[in-house]
């Protein structure tokens, strides 16, 4: 390169002031653009991060809401099941109460049936014999087997109406088995009043002087004798309702069966002729 060229070149290469200013301006603007771009990129990245955070948060919240919903549904289900359980428990209690009542009723009916069976058997047995000895044996059997009497005696009033004469007994020593005055004795008092006398105390502890039960014996509304129970078997420590029914039955049927058997024996076991029944007017 020549000196001229160098000088020219130097001169020609050197930008003019305007151009330099313009260049600087462009460079400044470019630099500014770059800065802005970088800022924008950073902001974009920040926004991306924020968006991810928000999406994550959103997902978490959605999951939480869904979980809450599930819990609410479960709670509703539990509430419904609790209600159903309460209803079932109530129904079960009602059924249990009904069953208990039914069982009690069945036991009551069975007990009633047993009592009726006792009464039927006693009545049936009293009238199943037409011999005085047979009837007496059956009366004793009713007392021993159905009532559970251990010591007892049956008395009939004498023709003078002053004394009760023992006609049958069980467990009473011979020397103790004596006629009883009607006046001033408990056994005689029952004959006079015509109503049974039953003590509240334990009948198994009864004595000959203080019998726990005395029953009047009637024939056609006339009191003709008594049965005195002096003591019962050890396990029979109280009289039950069925015993009182048996006392009533014995009172009304024992003497009648005995009288009928005696009359039949006196008639030498002859049945009355048909004519005896023709004038009954029924």
């Amino acid at each position, binding site marked *: 390169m020549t000196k001229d060229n160098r000088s020219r070149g130097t001169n020609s290469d050197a930008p003019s002031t305007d151009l330099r200013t313009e260049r600087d301006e462009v460079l400044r603007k470019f630099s500014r653009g770059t800065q802005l771009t970088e800022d924008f990129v950073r902001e974009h990245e920040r926004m991306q991060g924020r968006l991810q955070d928000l999406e994550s948060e959103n997902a978490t919240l959605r999951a939480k809401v869904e979980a809450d919903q599930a819990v609410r549904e479960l709670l509703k289900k539990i509430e419904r099941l609790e209600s159903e359980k309460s209803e079932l428990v109530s129904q079960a209690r009602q059924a249990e109460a009904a069953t208990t009542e039914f069982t009690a009723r069945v*036991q009551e009916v*069975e*007990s009633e*049936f*047993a009592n009726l*069976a*006792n009464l*039927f*058997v*006693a009545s*049936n*047995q009293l009238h*199943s014999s037409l011999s005085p000895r047979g009837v007496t044996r*059956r009366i004793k*059997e*009713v007392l*021993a*087997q*159905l*009532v*559970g009497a251990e010591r007892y005696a049956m008395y009939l009033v004498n023709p003078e109406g002053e004394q009760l004469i023992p006609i049958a007994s069980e467990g009473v020593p011979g020397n103790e088995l004596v006629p009883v005055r009607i006046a001033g004795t408990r056994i005689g008092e029952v004959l006079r009043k015509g109503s049974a006398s039953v003590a509240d105390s334990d009948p198994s502890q009864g004595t000959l002087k203080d019998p726990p039960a005395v029953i009047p014996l009637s024939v056609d509304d006339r009191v003709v004798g008594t049965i005195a129970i002096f003591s019962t*078997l*050890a*396990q*029979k420590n109280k009289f039950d309702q069925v015993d009182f029914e048996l006392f009533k039955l014995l009172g009304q049927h024992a003497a009648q069966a005995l009288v009928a058997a005696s009359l039949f024996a006196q008639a030498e076991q002859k049945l009355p002729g048909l004519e005896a029944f023709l004038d009954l007017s029924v």
Partner: protein
Amino acid sequence: MAEYSCLIVEDSPMMRQLLVFALARVKNLRVTEADDGVDGLRKLASARYDIIVTDINMPIMDGLKLVKRVRTDPVHKDTPIVIITTEGSQEDRQRALQLGANAYITKPIQAPQVIATVKELLKIE
């Protein structure tokens, strides 16, 4: 449903009648009556029974002898036996249980107790 047969051995007609009434409450139970131990053995020889209910005090052959004989009978050696006793006769009761009786009922008998004892021995609900 299974059918069961019961032999009642009792000399008292009243007690027999009462036992028959009581056991009529047990479903599918056929009841046969015998007057005493000898009559009971005769009936046991002619038929098979699932349970025997017998009184202790009987004429001709008492309940203890009957229990002893039943336990040597190949057909009825395992048949349940219920004895009926009075409270005072504990010795008889012990003897009967030693001879092979399975249960006892004391007099005066209560129908529900008779029913429960027979049902238990026959394993009926």
